[in-house]
C-alpha cells in the first residue's frame, strides 16, 4: 500500500509539484473572491465575519473608488494606443530593415525592461521636477507609454520575424501595391502579435503602481487607491472589483481562444 503510493508519487512527481504551484498562484484570487462576500467587522476586510451581498450590489459605494477605476481605464486605453502604434513601427523597422545604429536602438529598447521600476520612476520624477511639469494625468500617461513601449516592440517583433517574407513577395508578384500588400497580407498575419502587445500594454499600464506612485502627484489611479486603502482600511468593494477583473479576463481569454480555434478549423492548413 505505502510502496504503491510512493511509486505513484514518484511517477507523477512533476504533475503533483506543478499542481501545487498552480494552487499557490490561484489561492489569493480565491481569497479575494471569497472575501468579496464578507461583511467585515470594522475597517479591515481581513477576517471572515458573515456572508453578505452588500458590496456586490453597490460596487461604487465607497467614495472615489470608481473614479479611480475610470481614470486607470482611461490611462490604460491611451497608453495602449500610444505604445502599440509606436512599438509596432519600431518592430517593423528593426526586423525589416538593415540600417546603422540598429544595435544601439536594440539596447535602448531592451534597457527599460532590464531596469528596476523604482529607478525609472525616480528618474522620470527628476525630469518632471526639473521641467516644472504639473504632475497628474499627462505625466502618468507619458510614463506608461514609455515603459509599455519595449514590451510591445518585443511582442510584435517576434511575430514579424516568424512571418514568411515570400508571402509578401507573392502579393507583389500578383500586382498588389505596397499599401494593398500591407493591409491585405502583412497586417492580418502580424495582427496576433500586435494584439498580444496591446493586451500586454493594457494590463501593464492598468496595474502599474510604482511608476505611477512617483509621477502622479495628487492624482489617484486604481492601484494607488488600493495602496492607500491598505493603510486606511480596505473596503469590500476592492475585492468585488478584483473578482470582476479576474472573471472578465478569463472570459476575454476564453473568447479569444474560441475565435482562434474556429478560425483554425475553418481555414484548411
Amino acid at each position, binding site marked *: 500500500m505505502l510502496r504503491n503510493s510512493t511509486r505513484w508519487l514518484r511517477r507523477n512527481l*512533476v*504533475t503533483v*509539484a*506543478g*499542481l501545487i*504551484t*498552480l494552487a499557490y*498562484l*490561484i*489561492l*489569493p*484570487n480565491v*481569497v*479575494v473572491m471569497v*472575501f468579496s462576500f464578507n461583511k467585515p467587522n470594522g475597517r479591515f476586510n*481581513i*477576517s471572515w465575519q458573515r456572508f453578505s451581498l452588500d458590496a456586490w450590489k453597490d460596487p461604487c459605494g465607497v467614495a472615489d473608488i470608481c473614479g479611480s477605476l475610470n481614470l486607470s481605464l482611461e490611462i490604460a486605453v491611451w497608453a495602449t494606443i500610444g505604445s502599440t502604434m509606436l*512599438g509596432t*513601427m*519600431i518592430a517593423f*523597422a528593426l526586423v525589416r*530593415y538593415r*540600417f546603422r545604429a540598429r544595435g544601439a*536602438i536594440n539596447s*535602448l*529598447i*531592451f534597457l527599460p525592461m*532590464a*531596469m*528596476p*521600476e*523604482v*529607478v*525609472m520612476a*525616480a*528618474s522620470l520624477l*527628476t*525630469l518632471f*521636477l526639473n521641467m516644472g511639469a504639473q504632475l497628474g494625468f499627462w505625466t502618468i500617461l507619458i510614463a506608461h*507609454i514609455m515603459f509599455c*513601449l519595449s514590451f510591445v516592440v*518585443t511582442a510584435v517583433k517576434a511575430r514579424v520575424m516568424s512571418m514568411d517574407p515570400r508571402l509578401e513577395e507573392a502579393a507583389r508578384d500578383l*500586382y498588389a*501595391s*505596397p*499599401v494593398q500588400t500591407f*493591409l491585405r497580407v502583412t497586417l492580418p498575419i502580424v495582427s496576433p502579435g500586435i494584439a498580444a502587445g496591446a493586451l500586454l500594454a493594457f494590463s501593464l499600464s492598468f*496595474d502599474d*503602481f510604482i511608476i505611477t506612485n512617483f509621477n502622479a502627484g495628487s492624482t489617484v489611479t*486604481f*492601484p494607488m487607491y*488600493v*495602496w492607500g486603502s*491598505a493603510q486606511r482600511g480596505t473596503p469590500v468593494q*476592492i475585492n468585488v472589483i*478584483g473578482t470582476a477583473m*479576474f472573471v472578465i*479576463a*478569463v472570459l476575454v*481569454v476564453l473568447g479569444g481562444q474560441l475565435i482562434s480555434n474556429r478560425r483554425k478549423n475553418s481555414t484548411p492548413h
Partner: protein
Amino acid sequence: MTVTEAPLAEAPAEEAGAVRKPPVRKRLVPYWLLLPGIIWLLVFFALPMVYQASTSVQTGSLEDGFQVTWHFQTYWDALHEYYPQFIRSLLYAGTATVLCLLLGYPLSYLIAFKAGRWRNVVLILVIAPFFTSFLIRTLAWKTILADGGPVVGVLNTLHILDVTSWLGWTDGSRVLATPMAVVCGLTYNFLPFMILPLYTSLERIDGRLHEAAGDLYATPATTFRKVTFPLSMPGVVSGTLLTFIPAAGDYVNSELLGSTDTKMVGSVIQSQFLRVLDYPTAAALSFILMAIVLVMVTVYIRRSGTEDLV
C-alpha cells in the same frame, strides 16, 4: 471605399516606378518608422537618467534650491547608511528567484509536455490571476498569512515555524511582518514571469528527443539532466532575469507584508523621494541599485552564454 480605391489608382504609377524607386527615400523608411518611438524613449527614458545623474551630485535643500557641486560623498553616505537594505533586497530577490525557478519549472513542464488538451486551461489559470490588480492579490496574502489563521496554524503544528524562527525567517508564531512573508509575496508576484519564458522554451523542444534519449537507455532523470534542462536554458535565463530585476527594486511586498526590519531599498528610495524630499540621496540610491543590477545581469548573461534575450 476610399481605402480600396486609393491603392488601385496608385497601382499603375507604382508599377512603372517600381524598378527605379528613388533609393534615398527607401533608405529613410526605417528612420521614419523609428523616429517617434525612439524620441519618446530618449526624452522620457534616457534624458531622465541624465537628470538623475546630475541630481545625485547636487547639494542643497528644497527651500534654497539644489546646485550641482559634484558632491560624490552622497554616494558613499547613502551606501554607508542603507547597506542593510541593499543586502536585504538582493537576498530577498535572490531567494524569491530561486523559489520561482523551483516552483515554476514543474508547472511549465506540466503545461508543455503533460497537460495535453488541458494545456490552454492551465495556461489561462497561470495568466488570469495577473488581471486582478497585483496590489489586491498582495493584500490577500495578508489574510492568508494572518496570525492565528489556518496557514500559520498548520505550520505551527508541524513545528516548521520553530525551525524558521530559529533561522530568523519568521518571528515566533508569526509569519506576517517577517522576511518569510516578504519572500513569499515576492515569489508569488513574479512567478508568472518565470513560468511563461520557461514554458516557451520547453514547448520548443522536440518530443522525439525524449524518445531518442529513452531508446538510448537514459533514465528519466538522465534525460532531464542531459537533454531537457540544457535545452530550456534560454527560458531559465530570461525567467530568472525577469524575476530578479523587478523583485530587487520592489517595495510593495516589503511594505505590505513586512515590517521596518524587512525594508528593501525600493522603500528607502521611495520615502527619500516622496516624503523626505532629499533628492540627491534618493537619486544616488537609485543609481547604486541600477549599477548593482546591471553588473549582476551582465555577469550572469556572460556566464550563462545566451545573448539572444530580446
